[in-house]
């Protein structure tokens, strides 16, 4: 089977599991609303609501991402279903790419809840193509790196400890450039195209690197 067909099959399997169990997505949706509630009382929103909104969005996306990506491999481990998957002759990189794709889609679904909720609580635009492009592009690369370290962390004890410590520093390029893109999309000055192009470059680089490295992580 070709790389893409394996990846699509694994992604379909993960998404179907999620749709049947309905575990991660409802929890992430609640998490997002709770994060906004905390941000609303943590920041002085009365005077600076528009200013803190991009930061609130990024904090919520990164931490929701940690939860979403952590689940992809943790649930496989809980049911001991990763080993049979790895016993198939399919390439490890393709299996990994499929799981990362499913995890990215779960996070995108979470962002579909986050953006309107942010608009409701912080008066930001809800239907913004610029914002959607920035978020989706950042999510792809973050999913590549995040799932690589989630796969690694799931095979160790103290896995919940390891994922944030490994993933967050490596996400910094996405936070720097994606943060800027979101600021522009939410009404800050500057051009968006440069940031989006950079995000796309980072996506290509880190998805390739993570897929190659996954061979060594999904080994035992």
């Amino acid at each position, binding site marked *: 089977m070709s790389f893409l067909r394996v990846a699509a099959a694994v992604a379909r399997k993960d998404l179907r599991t999620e749709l049947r169990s309905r575990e991660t997505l409802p929890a992430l949706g609640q998490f997002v609303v709770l994060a906004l509630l905390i941000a609303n009382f943590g920041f002085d929103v009365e005077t600076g609501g528009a200013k803190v909104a991009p930061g609130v969005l990024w904090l919520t996306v990164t931490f929701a991402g940690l939860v979403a990506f952590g689940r992809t491999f943790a649930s496989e481990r809980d049911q001991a279903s990763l080993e049979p998957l790895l016993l198939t002759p399919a390439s490890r990189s393709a299996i990994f790419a499929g799981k990362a794709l499913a995890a990215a889609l779960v996070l995108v679904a979470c962002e579909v809840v986050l953006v309107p909720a942010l608009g409701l609580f912080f008066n930001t635009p809800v239907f913004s193509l610029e914002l959607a492009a920035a978020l989706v592009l950042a999510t792809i690369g973050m999913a590549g*790196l995040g799932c*690589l*370290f989630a796969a*690694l962390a799931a*095979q*160790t*004890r*103290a896995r919940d*400890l*390891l994922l944030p*410590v*490994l993933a*967050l*520093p*490596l996400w*910094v*390029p996405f936070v*720097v*450039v994606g943060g*800027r893109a979101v600021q522009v999309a939410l009404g800050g000055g*500057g051009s968006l195209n*440069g940031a989006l192009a*950079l995000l796309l470059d*980072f996506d290509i*680089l880190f998805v390739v*690197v*993570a897929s190659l*490295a996954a061979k*060594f*992580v999904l*080994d*035992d």
Partner: protein
Amino acid sequence: MTDVASTHVSTLSPARADLFRIAAIVDALLLLAAAALAVFHAPADTVQGVVQKIFYLHVPSAIAAYAAFAVVLAGGLVFLWNESPAADRLARVAAEVGLLFTTVMLVSGSLWARPIWGTYWVWWDPRLVSTLVLWLIYAGYLLVRRIATPGRQAGRFAAVVGIVGFIDVPIVHFSVSWWRTIHPPVETATPEALPPEMLLTLGVSMLAVLLLAAVLVGYRYRVEVLKDRLAAELDR
């Protein structure tokens, strides 16, 4: 349990143990010489004054840290290639030494920035941010080593973190410089050509700090060899 302590006390031939000791003594002298040169020989900077002398600790520490992380990268690649335990051990100890010198680099840099830039930390400088991320990535590397099952798994996982982390750091540097170009630029002093007294001091400090890093790697490596032997003996 067998009496392991008495069977493998030393891992080195007496000649190599002597070499280690000599290197450590020579380096202690070099470090004293570097400190003396920095205090008495190198002139104070015309603009920054005495504060600029942090330079003689800061720059060599940075070079030593980067060299150590290059060793981590190389060791990780070799380990993924052929699973050599020696490459894994070398990567392990180089990561510790690299983290140590990155800490020195961050602390000395902050102390230097305070009187010159008026603040301990700025976010517009790509070197500062990428060094902080560098520190965080290799702190994570050492945490992976601690948490993963020792042996093959720890070696592989750490190698992956070391390699991906090494790729990430220049990209952090690049994204912060890109980010800075769309923010108001801040004036920084451009270094002029160094007078010979400063060059000599820098050269000696560089040699002393790099040798210190090598000696630390060497001694830590010996400890790791002993640890691995002990673990193997206890398994038997």
